[in-house]
């Protein structure tokens, strides 16, 4: 088993810097998720561990071994690609067995391992098929089986679930989590899907423009976002981010006033509040933070998402599933003031109070 360490790693493609001064230590047996929007450098970071990209500067270690100049075949990592990257001309069995064939594993052992892995990912009845005869989910499982057929030091997974339909994705997510727990192999997992990150990770590194915005457990990232970017990226529906001004602990924006922020003052501020911390109230109540017309009402089943028109933007709140409001109806809104975040719009960093 192994830890992976990045020390001051930089990756440039020509004049474009994909990864800036990247420092991260991934612990032994940890499930670490690199989360970020497309183009944030997360896949590049992972590919440097695989040896498919070379770091422009800095050092990458697996345990104590510096691997920058080690050929991919000597790194002992296994990777699941977003496109699965199966060998199209080989059967399921030969695809799964390819890493073993390369390592000249004796026939009995080869057979035994493939049978075992195939059973685990439920492919044991289709070992003779070609990839083109499989569904997307089955192909994904072949790619996974090819990675787990040997016990590498590190698993690398590049958006392995992104090509699956929603239902299958949820199911495979649970299976991946269970598998990683069972195999106890250090795993680096790249995704742009914050729900995948939240559900799978021991720790999440939220990346943006080639740097880590925040590193922490899913709970820390969700409850304690340190930057405007992390606040906006994590959570579905996204956190409401409303620009305004804070004077002596009171946030004010067009039609909205929220107090309770100690005595801070921020001339250009952004108020952040999650949809579940905003509640519908009677418009006539004295202590409402806001009265606004309803823009849309969406029933998701377990709740109702209500969007309100606030200046030129929308504010979303999570209401009870039995909420019955009409579009254009004016409703009052109460915000849980102990659950708000304030950000400085200049630095895009959180301001504590």
């Amino acid at each position, binding site marked *: 088993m192994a830890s992976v360490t990045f020390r001051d790693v930089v990756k440039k493609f020509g004049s474009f810097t994909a990864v800036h001064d990247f420092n991260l230590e991934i612990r032994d047996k940890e499930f670490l998720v690199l989360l970020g929007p497309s183009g944030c450098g997360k896949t590049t970071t992972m590919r440097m561990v*695989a040896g498919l990209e070379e770091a422009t500067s800095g050092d990458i270690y697996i345990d104590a071994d510096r691997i920058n100049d080690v050929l991919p*075949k000597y790194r002992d990592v296994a990777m699941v690609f977003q496109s699965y990257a199966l060998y199209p*001309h080989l059967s399921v069995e030969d695809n799964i067995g390819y890493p073993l064939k390369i*390592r000249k594993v004796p026939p009995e052992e080869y057979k035994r391992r493939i049978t075992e892995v195939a059973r685990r990912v439920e492919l044991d009845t289709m070992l003779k098929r070609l990839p083109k005869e499989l569904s997307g989910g089955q192909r994904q499982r072949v790619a996974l089986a*090819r990675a787990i057929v040997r016990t590498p030091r590190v698993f690398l997974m590049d958006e392995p679930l992104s090509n699956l339909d929603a239902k299958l994705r949820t199911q495979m997510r649970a299976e991946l989590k269970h598998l990683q727990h069972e195999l106890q192999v250090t795993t680096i997992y790249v995704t742009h899907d914050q729900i995948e990150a939240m559900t799978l990770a021991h720790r999440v590194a939220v990346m943006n423009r080639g740097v880590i915005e925040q590193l922490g457990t899913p709970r820390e990232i969700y409850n304690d976002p340190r930057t405007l970017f992390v606040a906006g990226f994590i959570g579905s529906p996204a956190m409401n981010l409303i620009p305004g001004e804070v004077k002596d602990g009171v946030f004010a924006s067009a039609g909205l006033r929220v107090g309770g922020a100690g005595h801070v003052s921020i001339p250009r501020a952004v108020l952040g509040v999650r949809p579940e911390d905003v509640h519908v109230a009677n418009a006539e109540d004295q202590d409402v933070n806001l009265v606004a017309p309803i823009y849309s009402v969406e029933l998701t089943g377990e709740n109702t998402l209500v969007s309100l028109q606030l200046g030129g933007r929308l504010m979303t709140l999570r209401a009870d599933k039995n909420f019955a409001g009409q579009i254009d109806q004016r409703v009052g809104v109460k915000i849980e003031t102990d659950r708000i975040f304030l950000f400085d719009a200049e630095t895009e960093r959180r301001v504590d109070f």
Partner: protein
Amino acid sequence: MRERMADPILTVPTGSGTAFERWRERHLRILMLAPTLLLLAGLTLFPTVYMLTAAVQNVSPDPDVPREFVGLGNFARMLTDPELHVAVRNTVVFTVVAVTLEFLLGLGLALLFDKYIRRLNFLKTILLVPMMIPPIAVALTWKLIYQPQFGVLNELMFRLGLPSQAWAGDVNLAMATIIAADVWEWTPFIFLLMLAGLASLPSEPYEAAQVDGASAWRQFWDLTVPFLKPVIAIALLLRIMDALRLFDLVFILTVGGPAGATETLSLYIFKVAFTFVDIGYAAAISLVVLFATVGFSTWFIKRMRLAD
């Protein structure tokens, strides 16, 4: 509800079209193909029928002498014709050696270009030039190169202090000179096909193979060769069929000599038909060659599973 307005610019014509319009729409394809079909029928159908009938007849050069039906006599003659057997052997030797060399050189160059010199497009163009020169010009160029008295090759030998050779005029070297010229002319063709094949390969399986631990050599055998198989098969098939029909290079460089060392099937058929004016026998040989080529191609295509 708002009323849908008709788009004032994009109006759809009404009605169902005249009877002529409908007839034209249905038969236009046939009308346009007709001239080509007639021409093709004239140019291939007539000679084919002529060959089929001549193959079982004794055809005299004198048009006044009536043709004589000889059954399978012309075919029986082929079994005991030593010159024909030499021609078959020469053709097979030429095809195997030339196509093998062309394939290895073409694939090697393509791999080199695909991996290391992608940007040097002008070099690629230069490499393709031999294929674009008319075959007769290629043959004449090589004839001058091989020319014993003032050819470039003997000049080169002289400067290197080596004895000059008769080249195309030497029984032992003649076939090699033909093969060399053919390799020079047709390697670019294989190169071009392989380069196109390599450019279309997916990159992900190679990355997967690297991570799975495969060396560059393993990647070549486990991925590149299987991926290129359809292109390789097509390239070989076209080259083999072409090599089996070799005529121009031999006709210009050696005329089959010396002592029949470079006589190929096509050249022999030509000689039988137009020097010995034995049309019936020439037709019979042609027919056998035709069936052999078609048979080989069919087997090869099946073997390579090109059909799927």
